[in-house]
């Protein structure tokens, strides 16, 4: 294993790391089964894991269930201990004090995204979970994509609907130790909802579900990518190494920026990858060039790119240095449109970039 001493963390970082680890050790662990729709098997996978853990001797307790379960889940439930939920009219909430008194190793909570009945000590179930974790009880729970605040906009773009409640951005990022995606074909889960009568509407519904399913997989992939990165970093490896695409579009005042930027955005979206745009400062730009450049950079920001203005005597060196820092996997670059001396200079740069970008794809855009 390579250990680069220049990557060694500072004492302050170490201390923060230790404190975080101590807090983590006292706290229970949170594991989340993430799915894209009701009825794809999250509950089964979670409860079945609970059963296996119990049979291995872990102290596992069910604290919240869904109102209706298919046969295969009903077969598991009798093999698990259940702490009954509190009932307030129609709605149920976790009996937090009872769970803390019982203090199991693991609490199974089917359905994380619930509001508690008015008057409950905690307004939201995720706060109950937080409390259990603080008490040192590990929690395994299930959640649907559309209830994550982080993904609300994206889900709304697909379904046209906005979920009534949500799990705040910070909760999963800081609390969840592990996320498992529960995957199943869209067609099977369709049967659970109201099935529209005509074929076109049914296909449209199925198409939406497929897109949600894809989103769930890609979200899980990017969570995993971050885990990989932090694992490598904690082992003294700085260079990003996952399978995530990181795209860098190089703009100049003269490049055909719009096409490259849009294509960069699409590529980054498709892979849930990262999208950078860089410009290397050049001396003595004309008024006109400055205006075009500004336009290009504005457009890049509008498309959500992370824009970097680089400086350096040598444009190619500056770009490559930046690319290696960020672990760029693809560089987009344009042919120059301008004739004359500048053009020769630019095509030299393109040549050198192609030659030196070892380990990175170079995509040369026509104009």
């Amino acid at each position, binding site marked *: 294993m*390579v250990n680069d001493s220049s990557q060694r963390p500072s004492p302050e970082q170490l201390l923060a790391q230790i404190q975080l680890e101590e807090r983590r050790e006292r706290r229970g662990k949170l594991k989340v089964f993430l799915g894209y729709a009701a009825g794809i098997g999250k509950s089964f996978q979670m409860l079945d894991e609970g059963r296996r853990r119990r049979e291995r001797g872990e102290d596992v307790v069910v604290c919240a269930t869904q109102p209706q379960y298919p046969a295969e889940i009903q077969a598991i439930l009798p093999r698990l201990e259940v702490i009954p939920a509190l009932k307030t009219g129609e709605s149920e909430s976790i009996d937090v004090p009872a769970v803390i008194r019982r203090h199991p190793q693991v609490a199974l909570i089917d359905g994380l995204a619930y509001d508690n009945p008015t008057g409950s000590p905690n307004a939201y179930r995720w706060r109950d979970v937080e409390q259990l974790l603080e008490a040192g009880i590990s929690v395994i729970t299930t959640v649907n994509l559309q209830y994550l605040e982080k993904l609300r906009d994206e889900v709304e773009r697909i379904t046209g609907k906005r979920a009534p409640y949500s799990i705040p951005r910070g909760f999963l990022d800081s609390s969840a130790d*592990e996320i498992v995606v529960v*995957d*199943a074909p869209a067609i099977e889960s369709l049967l659970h909802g109201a099935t529209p009568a005509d074929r076109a509407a049914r296909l449209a519904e199925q198409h939406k579900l497929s897109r949600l399913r894809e989103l769930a*997989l890609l979200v899980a992939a990017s969570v995993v990518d971050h885990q990989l990165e932090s694992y490598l970093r904690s082992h003294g490896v700085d260079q990003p*190494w*996952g399978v995530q695409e990181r795209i860098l579009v190089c703009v100049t005042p003269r490049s055909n920026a719009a096409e490259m930027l849009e294509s960069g955005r699409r590529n980054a979206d498709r892979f849930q990858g990262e999208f950078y745009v860089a410009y290397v400062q050049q001396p003595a730009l004309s008024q006109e060039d400055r205006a075009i450049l500004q336009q290009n950079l504005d457009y890049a920001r509008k498309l959500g790119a992370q824009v970097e203005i680089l400086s350096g005597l040598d444009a190619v060196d500056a770009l490559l240095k930046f690319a290696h820092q960020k672990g760029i996997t693809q560089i987009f670059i344009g042919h120059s449109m301008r004739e004359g001396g500048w053009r020769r200079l630019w095509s030299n740069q393109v040549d050198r970039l192609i030659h030196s*970008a070892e380990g990175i794809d170079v995509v040369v855009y026509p*104009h």
Partner: protein
Amino acid sequence: MSSSIHINRDEEQTYGQSGRSQLKVFLGYAAGVGKTYRMLEEAQQLKRQGKDIAVGYFEPHGRKDTIAKAAGLELIPRRIVAYRGGTFQEMDTTAILSRRPATCVVDELAHTNLPGSERSKRWEDVQVLLDAGIDVMTSMNIQHLESLNDQVFQITGIRVRETVPDWFVKSATEVVMVDATTGALLNRLKRGNIYAAEKAQRAMENFFKESNLTALRELALRQTAHELELREIASASEERRPQQEPCGAPPSSPKATIDRILIYVCADASTAMLIRRGRRMADYLGADCFAVSVIPLRDHSRLPKQDRDAIAKHLNFARNLHVETRILEGDDAAETIVDFARSNQITQILLSRRNHSSWSRLFGTDLILRIVKEAKDIRVIIVSERRRSNYAPAHK
């Protein structure tokens, strides 16, 4: 200037359903994530619904939970094969065909049959079952997918030999990801649920390194999303839906121009990687895809024999991945390629960073730069072999 020799055009590609039978692939990222368990669970559900289901092959690996899941399912006896003084068991495809269940469970799709078997690969046996109208549920790991062979090698340092061609997986009705956290997987390994103790220890030092597993897991998640997208693209173009605008959902990728991809085939070993990449790109874009090589005009022997052999091997590989192939004649490879690209409306040219064959070096000019210069109106992609960083397993 250059002439085109048309060789072995692929027979009409018949992706999608083979007959009416359904193929469902359970995709995992390592042994022990729970593919077989999940598959048997589904088989049990189908059985409860009264479906006619049988297990053609499953590999219990002595795992208690998995064996319990198979209880009550009909197992079709395996074929006993004598080979080099030992006896081995293989799936009995003939027996499955005569039993003819509606659905058959076949574990370990990437398995290579013993020499002397009727077909060399299990996926070919599965193809036979599908052709006979039997639905199949099967399992495989991400590292066995042909087009990801390079990426898996870069991640793990291990060159996987048993692969399943992408077009076969693409023909599946459904690909489902079977996920587990790497932590859970390593725990299973430590408890001895996956391999016996000694093998488990070796596994953890090699393939089952946490970093490897995490990267493979990410790869599997992305591949499943990719498979899903392919099916969406296919069904969208099949349906040619009347303009429905469901609740502000953006229209599904309107495709103005059809992309056409050219993969430049040369003798260099990196060409295999280039072909895999080109195939994946074409799948994403729904694009046409050509693998094209250039040989010297008239006197082919000016190209050294080992180069000609390597090119022939690469073209053959391209055909196996269902990429159309062409051999062009010309003394200037860059010009020949660009001419071909223009007259065939190619929109993207894929080149490997390492494209030198001893012959093209004769020109003394850099082929990549010449193509980039000539093909001003075409996107040119110079593909690198993704390097493993300095973080690498101690040995392979």
